[in-house]
């Protein structure tokens, strides 16, 4: 399998102040990576870097050719503004095709079909013309994932996707992400606080604390000192 994305000793930061340094990992097609770490550990900085919004200060970030041409599917955290935004589900999903559209002022039939296909994948086709703001939190996340898949269906980056969801919706969303990963071979990078579920879902773990503290598969992580203490910390808290 090909490497989708490789980081070689990459450092990211703002205005030459390094927020996260010396990160090295790679992701192959269809792999599921979880990025964990405490607040301020550089998770969001790394993500901005992967999305191409920050240039690496050091090291290099290599994307595979097809990914360079399309874009990375991205699920950002929801903003306040979206809570009363008048838009139908289909309008939201279609906006994921923005990059393919180029300079043309309107979407083509093919792009509309892509949008529809992705809505179906997420089981949301019946909600096509419903107002986005009237959906439940979990349904809104599904719509936004469908939008991200319109950009590419090879790599999805999810930024704390379960924030604000109730336990049932959280479980449902995790299962959905897992299914996308297994059935459609979509590679996943998920940034999360929910370390216990993350370990159950993912194949690989990247643990950050301003630098790379751990990268490897889940079994190794559970055995490692840092993984062990972090996992037990979670248990102790609850």
């Amino acid at each position: 399998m090909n490497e989708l994305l490789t980081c070689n000793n990459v450092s990211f930061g703002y205005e030459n102040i390094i927020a996260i340094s010396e990160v090295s990992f790679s992701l192959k097609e269809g792999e599921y990576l979880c990025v964990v770490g405490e607040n301020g550990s550089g998770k969001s900085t790394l993500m901005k870097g992967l999305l191409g919004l920050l240039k690496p200060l050091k090291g290099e970030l290599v994307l595979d050719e097809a990914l360079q041409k399309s874009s990375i599917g991205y699920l950002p955290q929801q903003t306040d503004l979206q809570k009363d935004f008048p838009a139908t589900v289909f309008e939201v999903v279609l906006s994921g095709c923005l990059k393919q559209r180029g300079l043309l002022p309107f979407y083509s039939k093919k792009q509309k079909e892509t949008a529809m296909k992705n809505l179906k994948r997420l089981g949301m086709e019946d909600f096509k013309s419903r107002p986005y703001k009237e959906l439940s939190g979990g349904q809104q996340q599904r719509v936004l994932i469908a939008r991200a898949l319109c950009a590419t269906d090879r790599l999805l980056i999810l930024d704390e996707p379960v924030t604000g969801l109730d336990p049932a919706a959280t479980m449902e969303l995790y299962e959905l992400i897992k299914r996308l990963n297994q059935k459609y071979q979509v590679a996943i990078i998920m940034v999360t606080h929910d370390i216990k579920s993350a370990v159950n879902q993912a194949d690989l773990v990247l643990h950050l604390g301003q630098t790379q503290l751990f990268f490897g598969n889940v079994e190794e992580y559970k055995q490692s000192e840092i993984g062990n203490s972090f996992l037990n910390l979670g248990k102790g808290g609850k």
Partner: protein
Amino acid sequence: MSGFWYDVFTYGFLGRAFLVGCLVSLCSSLLGVILVLKRYSMIGDGLSHVSFGALSVAVALGFAPLKISIPVVILAAFFLLRIRNSKRIKSDAAIAVISSSSLAIGVIATSLSTGMTTDVCSYMFGSVLAMNQEDVVLSILLSVVVLLLFILCYHKIFAVTFDESFACATGVNVGFYNLLLAILTAITIVLGMRMMGAMLISSLIIFPALTSMRVFKSFKMVTISSGILSVICFVLGMMGSYFYSIPVGASVVVINLCFLLVGFLIESIKNKKQLRSSIKLG
């Protein structure tokens, strides 16, 4: 009623005001949908005050008012957008500071030159007589540019408004579209201000969008409806101003307010219906 239409087509100044008014209403309502959704409503209000200041200074110094005030207001718009992203000063405070200062500068400039005449009053509250031939041509050209850019960039504008981080990640130059929005808004406000007045122009931006959002739930329908609604309100407002000899700006705002109230009414009826049907289903 026929007297109104007859006069619009025979008296040059009425016809000009009618044409420019319709175009500016259309532009401002389209931009308004985005500004309201982005929580930029107050920027429109701030810019109208800046526009008043610039216009007064330009008149006092004897320059052509539109040519001076458009660049000044564009600069102010750019500045206000920048401030929104800064952490040092809160943007609502910044808008208040800028709008009252430019109002003050405008008032000082006029009282030093011509004194507080009816001119100032017409800047504040608008007048149909304010436009000359050259202004009209410029207004029409600029409105058409605003409309064209809006239509061409509609989908990008939607994406940037709905979700800046996603748009950014798909490679849209978000900064550019925000700047474009600021420039288009600035132009529209300067054009509309002469007729609507500095105090009232921001209503053209906010009301139609708010009303449409009560009734429609898709972005496309909200945009189309606020465009149509805004033009209708302007025409009705101008008729009101013609028949009762009241300032056109105030008359348009009151008509817009009536429509907004009707919008609230429709929304609450709709909600009740929905509630009832969901109870039946349950």
